[in-house]
């Protein structure tokens, strides 16, 4: 019997990125003893190659969009966008980690293997069209990230971070799974399109059950994107985890979780949107406000960026509240811009933190503008983008989100959100002040010169931020085309 009876090649191509990432992740672990003796950089090179291959595969898969494995997966513009995004995040995480891992004496293949697994899970989340697949993707991504958070196993803070992340994270995933069970129980299906059909069909299931299911999933996903009131874990975990991992956590899993958030709520739960909209409204406002106001007083940069990432999750929740295709496109754009600026900012933190991550405070950035003008200039671009100054991706992201919100008549949310972004300017400015207007600190005086990987890890996101700020159409047109999800 020919193989093609078992294997549908079109399906396999649509699943190719995940396949590549899983195989290469495993290969890295197996090759560890062989490669370790030659060059510790080999792992990094190999994982960048695998990610590049996976990215190419994602783009290639989009040449023939459609569903795979009987509707369990879907490759559409939305899925491809997020696949490319999380893989890009992966590359930008690996680049600064060469130096970081070397400095911490922790150059093993596990770091890269776990990263590839986690990204495979996120790719699956982006393309899953069925609650069980989403759950699998979520778990693959999460479990790998729990371990990554505690990767420096001799570091007390990293251990605390990993444990906290694991306990709270698995609890949240439990909530999500419970919601899935409710959906299956009341509609008899886990396929998103089928759930949508059941809700709009002639015999809709009990709204109470569906409402409970939606609420449970909201809790689970709200945790994953660190939206308020499920954001408490984020500052501790972000602070304790190794900095490249923090950068990754704040961009990759978050983007994938938002992809799932939008896919579920904009397709399966679209018929009950009037019910969940107020919840998301409140969550958006709380996230923005708590994130921004708590960040005002932080002395630790990683903690500060953690709170800022809560606030940014709030902005994306505003896009969800708009519940329109424009809002979805705005969120896609925003997450791309956010990935660039945030990973870039964390790359600078990782560069400066020194052995054992001693230097993490705002004051440690003192005089960076004099000591390392290029690093400081790049960080300034990221910070200005996080503030939302024009000609950066962050500005256009906010602009599109609030435009979508106003189109959906969310005037108050827009006004409060924009005022929030003015508050946020204060704490980002603090970093700029310290960098340019204070005397050099111990950390900046002793900082090593930029390595090749780090330069790339700074310049690429900076270019990305500026390109998104000056030619936003390039990304936005694609996002706009792919934002109307199949219902």
């Amino acid at each position: 019997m020919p193989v093609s009876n078992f294997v549908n090649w079109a399906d396999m191509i649509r699943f190719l990125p995940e396949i590549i990432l899983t195989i290469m992740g495993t290969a890295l672990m197996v090759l560890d003893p062989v490669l370790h003796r030659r060059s510790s950089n080999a792992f990094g090179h190999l994982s960048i190659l695998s990610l590049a291959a996976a990215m190419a595969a994602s783009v290639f898969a989009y040449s023939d969009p459609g569903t795979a494995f009987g509707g369990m997966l879907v490759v559409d513009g939305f899925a491809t966008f997020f696949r490319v995004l999380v893989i890009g995040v992966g590359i930008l995480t690996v680049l600064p980690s060469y130096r970081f891992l070397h400095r911490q004496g922790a150059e093993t293949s596990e770091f890269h293997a776990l990263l590839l697994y986690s990204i495979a899970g996120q790719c699956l989340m982006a393309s899953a069209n069925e609650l069980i697949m989403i759950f699998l993707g979520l778990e693959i991504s999460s479990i790998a990230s729990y371990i990554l958070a505690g990767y420096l196993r001799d570091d007390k803070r990293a251990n605390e971070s990993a444990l906290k992340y694991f306990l709270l994270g698995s609890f949240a995933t439990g909530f999500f799974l419970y919601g899935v069970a409710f959906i299956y129980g009341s509609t008899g299906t886990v396929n998103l399109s089928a759930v949508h059909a059941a809700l709009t069909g002639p015999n809709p299931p009990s709204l109470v059950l569906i409402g409970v299911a939606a609420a449970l999933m909201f809790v689970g996903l709200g945790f994953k994107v660190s939206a308020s009131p499920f954001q408490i874990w984020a500052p501790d975990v972000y602070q304790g985890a190794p900095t490249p991992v923090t950068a990754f956590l704040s961009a990759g899993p978050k983007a994938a979780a938002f992809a799932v958030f939008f896919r579920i709520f904009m397709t399966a739960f679209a018929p009950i949107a009037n019910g969940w909209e107020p919840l998301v409204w409140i969550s958006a406002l709380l996230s923005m406000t708590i994130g921004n106001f708590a960040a005002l007083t932080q002395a630790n940069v990683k903690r500060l960026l953690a709170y800022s990432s809560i606030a940014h999750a709030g902005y994306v929740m505003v896009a969800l509240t708009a519940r329109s295709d424009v809002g979805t496109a705005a969120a896609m754009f925003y997450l791309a811009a956010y990935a660039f600026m945030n990973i870039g900012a964390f790359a600078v933190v990782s560069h400066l933190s020194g052995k054992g991550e001693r230097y993490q405070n705002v004051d440690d950035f003192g005089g960076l503008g004099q000591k390392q003008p290029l690093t400081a200039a790049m960080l300034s671009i990221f910070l200005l983008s996080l503030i939302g100054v024009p000609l950066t991706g962050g500005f256009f992201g906010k602009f599109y989100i609030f435009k979508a919100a106003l189109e959906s008549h969310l005037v108050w949310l827009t006004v409060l959100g924009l005022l929030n972004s003015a508050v946020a300017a204060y704490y980002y400015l603090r970093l700029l002040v310290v960098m340019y207007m204070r005397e050099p600190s111990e950390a900046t005086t002793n900082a090593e010169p930029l390595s090749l990987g780090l330069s790339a890890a700074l310049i690429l996101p900076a270019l990305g931020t500026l390109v998104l700020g000056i030619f936003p159409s390039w990304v936005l047109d694609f996002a706009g085309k792919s934002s109307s999800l199949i219902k």
Partner: protein
Amino acid sequence: MNLPTLLLVLPAVGFLIALLLPRSSPHASRTWALVISLATFAVSLALPAMFDRNTAGEQLALNVPWITTPDIHYYVAVDGIGLWLVLLSTFLTPICVLISWRSIQNRAKEFYAFLLLLEVGLIGVFIAQDLFLFYVFWEISLVPMYFLVGIWGHERRIYAAVKFFLFTMAGSVLMLAAIIYLYNRAGTFSYPALVEMLQSGRLAFAPNEQLLLFLAFFLAFAIKVPLFPLHTWLPDAHVEAPTAGSVMLASVMLKMGTYGILHFCLPLFPSASRTCAPWIVVLALIGIIYGALVSLVQPNMKKLAAYSSVSHLGFVVLGIFSFTQLGFDGAVYQMLNHGISTGALFALVGLLYERRHSLEIADYGGVATAAPWLSTAFLITTLASIGLPALNNFVGEFLVLQGAALANFKWAIYAAIGVILSACYMLWLYQRVFYGEVNEEIRSHLPDLNLREWALVVPLIAMMVWMGVYSQSFLPAVGKTTARVLSQTQVNVPFQVQARPQTEVARAR
């Protein structure tokens, strides 16, 4: 190439090249900044030559799509107001380079790069005709000024820089919301198209809607002006900024606010502007008198000049909200006058500071003996600032007072008090600094103007005289545009007449 675009491109390219210059050679950065800013000024001189003074509309336009969704255009053009403000910016930038020539030694490369970027932002604000583009330049101009104050300023520079940034940012985010709202309603960011739609009645706002939109725009502009009581960032920023920063801030950046009010607020929201006019005029009058009174008691020269700006800008706002042709013309002319004379004032104070490293009035006295030419320049600036006839401020203040008197005679009376007070504080300042006992330290350590300083002082004084003696070079182009703005503000007035009885009914209750 489109002339306004060229005026953006030159300093922008200058900025990028300035970033690439070697850090080790501050002289290269200085020279480069001077060359590029002079080139920009030279090119900008073609602007009034090519500008047709007999038409009121936007001229020398370039309109190309920038972003497809939403429909954002790179749309630049100049009208009779923007024309002169662009020239003011290009005129003052080389002067600022000259002022900083010796005083900025630390990180000179970045300083001059930021100065050129600031010029890009300022010119952009005055030529952008697409609301979105306008907002982009509005925010961009904030960043270099923040760094100029924060890095090269005096002791409390960080506080001043952050306060400046946050005040402006807080005001402008609401303007952004209003801009998006306008787009969602009208489907375009193009300012001329919006005005055309409003004039033809294809776009109309409900009274409440219009009021909120007006306030969102106005707040952003009023903070920048600054209108009392939103002025508190200004004394801090002015005092702490390096001389070039103070000059650009006072001369050009404050005009962004008044330009915005005249160019955007009034034509876009005519009836809301007229409804709010009495309240705003009261704030402007308070600003005029309060600013002057506070100036009177300042022991610090820069702070005195800063509060005098609050007072002077009150005149501009008064002129605008008098809704008369004379008031509008006077307001625009006063914007330019204030740019020249307060710019000169800050520049001269900067020269004194370079010599004696103090801004306190008490540390000076008898400077006229040691530096007679410097004192003469300061005297002319003082006289211009208090509105002596044949110098520039007189024309503007006269027109504003006349316009205000036409609208409401009492306004003119209160504003005139401000004129009298300005004579008090400026002349008293002059007396204390330049006359009186001269101590030995001042006599021996306070040299007169050198060649570079002559080069920056003479153009400023020449402009004061020219603008005071022959205002006809400037006013006709202004008048055409302001007349059009005035006619645009009359379009929705019938609506206001209908609304008035209702408010009176409400008041009666």
